[in-house]
Structures are given as structure tokens and as C-alpha cells.
């Protein structure tokens, strides 16, 4: 155990010395990785913010529920009861047919028509505000309400929500593709920087192998280097996004004041940030592993 700790400590110390030994090139690699990672991560953050923003638009009516014209007060209170008991419903408002007619009467364009009517052609209605704004929730509510007694028509006012939802979905797919591509880029960048490191330490590797070093021993410091570099790149990406959001929030503040609302773009949460760091370290590790393994393989096949 002591020996194992010692080996890993030495490897880590050697790694840090290597990073510090070529600060400029380390800095550049970390920046390149950071920029590459900040692209998909930044888009992801923006999409998340759009999602929260769209969730805030609960001020507009979501579903209009029209009863059939022969529905009496018993049916109205039955529907009322069901709406109260439904977990998908946030709150609702009953619009009696007299009130609806009154609305029309107020409107100059319709007032003549309305007064000429012998009876009220309008049904009782409910305006329902859903608890959750997602297209799925609205669609579920829609389907359920249609099955209720004396419900004639349910009007889903969620076209925009659905459009936004599919737009966000598309955005997520695009971000995922970008993330995979730039993940590969990270592996290649690490592969190359580690390859350059290996070239400067060719002799050390050769001698270590000749006097009994296992491949694991030789790989270890490079794996640390790759993982550390990836991690630092991940942190750099986080910093780039945080700075970007800071500047954007300044501009958004002005806009929000015009609309007298408060809205700021939020950065990644703790869990997402840790995931970003973990993944970037893993990809760095992988790039380093490929690089050293290739070198060791070349050494092994060179000398029979």
C-alpha cells in the first residue's frame, strides 16, 4: 500500500513538474481544450435557460374547456371537482355563459349581433392553467378532459409550447452531436500533446523498460498528465461560459427592465459542472492512454 501510494505520488509529482516545466504549451493546450468544450457546453446552458424561461410563461391561458349547452350546474360542479383533484392542473377559472356573452356585448363590433339573439348561444367554459408547461403534460390533460361528462370541446392553446419544445429537442440533438465531435477533438488534442511529451522522454521510457518497468508504470504519469490537462480544460470551459454569461446578463438586464421583468441566465448547476469536469478528465485520460499505448506498441514491435 505504501509502495503503491509512493508510486502514484511520484507519478503525480512528475506530472505536475512536466506541466510546470512547459507552462506556455500547457497553457495553450488547456485553452484549446477549454474553447472546444465551452462550445457545446455553452449551447447546452443557453438551451437550459430557454427551457426555464418558457416555463415562466404561465401567465397565458393554456386550455379552454367548453361544456355542452345542456350542461347544468350539477355537471359544472362535477367538472370543478375533477379539476381541483387533478395534479396536472395549477389553477382554473370558471367562465359562465352569461359572462362570456357579456364580454361579447361589450365589444362594439359584436354588440348588435348579440342583442339581436333571442337566446345565449354560448356554453359554460373553464380556463385551465396547467401546472407544467410541457407539451406532454398539456396533451395528457387534453385527452383526459375529453373523457369527462358533458365536455363538448377542449381547446389546446399550446401550439407555441409545442413548437418551442420541438425546437429545444432539435437543439439538444444538435448539441449532443457537437459534444461528441468536440469530445473526439479533446481526445485528439490530448493524444498529440502527450505524443510530444513522450518524444521528449523517449530515452527515459526506453531505459525504464530495459530495467524492468511494466507498461502500467510507464503509462501512469502520462495518464495523470492527460487527465489533469482535460480537467484543467474543463475548468477553463466553465470559466469561459461563466464570463460569457456575465456579459450577456448585463445586456439582458437592460432588456428585462424594458419589459419590467427580472431574468438572468443561470450557469451550470453543481452536478452538471462536476459532470463536465469528470468527463473532460476522462477524455484526457483516454487520449493519453491511446498515445502512450501506441508508443509502447511501437517499441515492442520494434525490438522483437
Amino acid at each position: 500500500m505504501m509502495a503503491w501510494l509512493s508510486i502514484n505520488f511520484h507519478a503525480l509529482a512528475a506530472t505536475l513538474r512536466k506541466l510546470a516545466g512547459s507552462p506556455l504549451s500547457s497553457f495553450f493546450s488547456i485553452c484549446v481544450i477549454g474553447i472546444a468544450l465551452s462550445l457545446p457546453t455553452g449551447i447546452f446552458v443557453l438551451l437550459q435557460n430557454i427551457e426555464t424561461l418558457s416555463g415562466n410563461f404561465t401567465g397565458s391561458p393554456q386550455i379552454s374547456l367548453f361544456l355542452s349547452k345542456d350542461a347544468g350546474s350539477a355537471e359544472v360542479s362535477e367538472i370543478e371537482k375533477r379539476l381541483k383533484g387533478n395534479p396536472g392542473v395549477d389553477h382554473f377559472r370558471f367562465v359562465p355563459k352569461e359572462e362570456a356573452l357579456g364580454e361579447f356585448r361589450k365589444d362594439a363590433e359584436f354588440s348588435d349581433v348579440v342583442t339581436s339573439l333571442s337566446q345565449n348561444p354560448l356554453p359554460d367554459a373553464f380556463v385551465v392553467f396547467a401546472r407544467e408547461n410541457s407539451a406532454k403534460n398539456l396533451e395528457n390533460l387534453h385527452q383526459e378532459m375529453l373523457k369527462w361528462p358533458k365536455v363538448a370541446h377542449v381547446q389546446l392553446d399550446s401550439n407555441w409550447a409545442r413548437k418551442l419544445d420541438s425546437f429545444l429537442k432539435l437543439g439538444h440533438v444538435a448539441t449532443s452531436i457537437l459534444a461528441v465531435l468536440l469530445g473526439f477533438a479533446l481526445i485528439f488534442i490530448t493524444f498529440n500533446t502527450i505524443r510530444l511529451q513522450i518524444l521528449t522522454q523517449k530515452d527515459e521510457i526506453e531505459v525504464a523498460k530495459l530495467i524492468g518497468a511494466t507498461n502500467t508504470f510507464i503509462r501512469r504519469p502520462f495518464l495523470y498528465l492527460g487527465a489533469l490537462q482535460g480537467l484543467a480544460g474543463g475548468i477553463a470551459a466553465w470559466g469561459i461560459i461563466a464570463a460569457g454569461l456575465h456579459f450577456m446578463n448585463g445586456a439582458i438586464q437592460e432588456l428585462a427592465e424594458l419589459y419590467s421583468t427580472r431574468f438572468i441566465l443561470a450557469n451550470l448547476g453543481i452536478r452538471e459542472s462536476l459532470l463536465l469536469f469528470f468527463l473532460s478528465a476522462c477524455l484526457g485520460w483516454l487520449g493519453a492512454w491511446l498515445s502512450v499505448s501506441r508508443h509502447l506498441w511501437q517499441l515492442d514491435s520494434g525490438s522483437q
Partner: protein
Amino acid sequence: MISFQAVGKRYPGGFDALKNITFSIERGEMVFIAGHSGAGKSTLLKLVAAIERPTSGSILVRDQNLGRMKRSAVPYLRRNFGLVFQDHKLLFNRTVFENVFLPLQIGAFDPREAGSRVRAALDKVGLLGREHAYPVELSGGEQQRLCIARAIVNRPAILIADEPTGNLDAEYSGIIMDMFKSFNQVGVTLLVSTHDEAMLRKLRPRVITLHQGELAP
């Protein structure tokens, strides 16, 4: 301890560096490999340390057949050896101390004892005062002794040295040979190549002579 049975080595170009070599070396022996330049001395030592693999015949080292050994087992075999290379293979960006420390690091040696081990090895070759120097600051003879310190720091059972006195003057050669004799006296098996006839006449060790890749009678 080491036995060759009809061993041949043909390099990728098709050149036969060794042909039909058979001999064996017992534990605690001191054996010299003699022969002119190009006779195959280095090749023979590389075969023992599994740096090269035989193309025919079989080599046993400590009852392990090197020809059939898995690649992953080779590092553990090599830790039985102390190797002194013809071209030194010192690390010039590391200090004298760090060069000698390397085998202990590789062998996961207890770090608390490693320091004194390194100093003991440097003491044996007379470099104790130069721990913090870099190899470029050492003379040719001192570099050679540094190689030997690195080879013995692990207290190997077998010491393999390829022309350790190759380009040293007679006085230095004498010092190094005395060193080897003292290792042998404490039970280390020695396998040393040389083309220095004078040395062989003086020491009168067991000699295996190679001539153009074959055992000379």
C-alpha cells in the same frame, strides 16, 4: 541459472548474429564473453536479458524459457538482473541520485529505505559525493561507475555488463574489475563481455569466446 541450448539469432535483415550456441552458467559463477567486435557478444547478453528473442533454440534463465515468455512477464524477469549497457543509457536530465533511484522506483521499493539504498550503491562505486551532479559533469569512468551503481542498487542475483571497460584506460579498468570481483564474492552471478585480452590474462576467469557468431573452441 542461465542455459543456452542450440541458440541462434537472426536479425530482421537476415544476418545470423549467433549460430548454434550452447552453454550453461551456474549460480555464483563469473563468466566472461570474449570476442572481437561484431562477434555477437552484445547480442548474446541481450538474449539473456530478453531484450532480443532467439530465432532458434531455447534459453532458460532461472528455469524460465525466454523464447516462450509472455511480454507482460519480461519486466519481472529483468528485475533479477543488473544491466550495464555498452552505451550507458544514462538519463542526462536526471541527477546521479535520480539515475540510481530509478530501478527502485520501478520496483515499488519502500521509499523510506530507498534513499539509503541509493547512497550505499553510490558508495560502492565511489560516487557518494556526486549525488547531486548531472551525468554530463562526470568523466567517462565516472559515468561507467554510475551505470554500475544503477545496476547493483536492486541487489540483483545476476549482473550483466556489456564491455564495461570498453573505452577506459587501464587504471580505471582495474578499479571496475576489482569491483566486479567483490560483487562475485558476495554471491552475484556475473556475465561480462569484453574484448580486452590483457584483462582476461590477468583475471583468468571462465571465458566463452565467440567468433563470427559461433562458439570458438
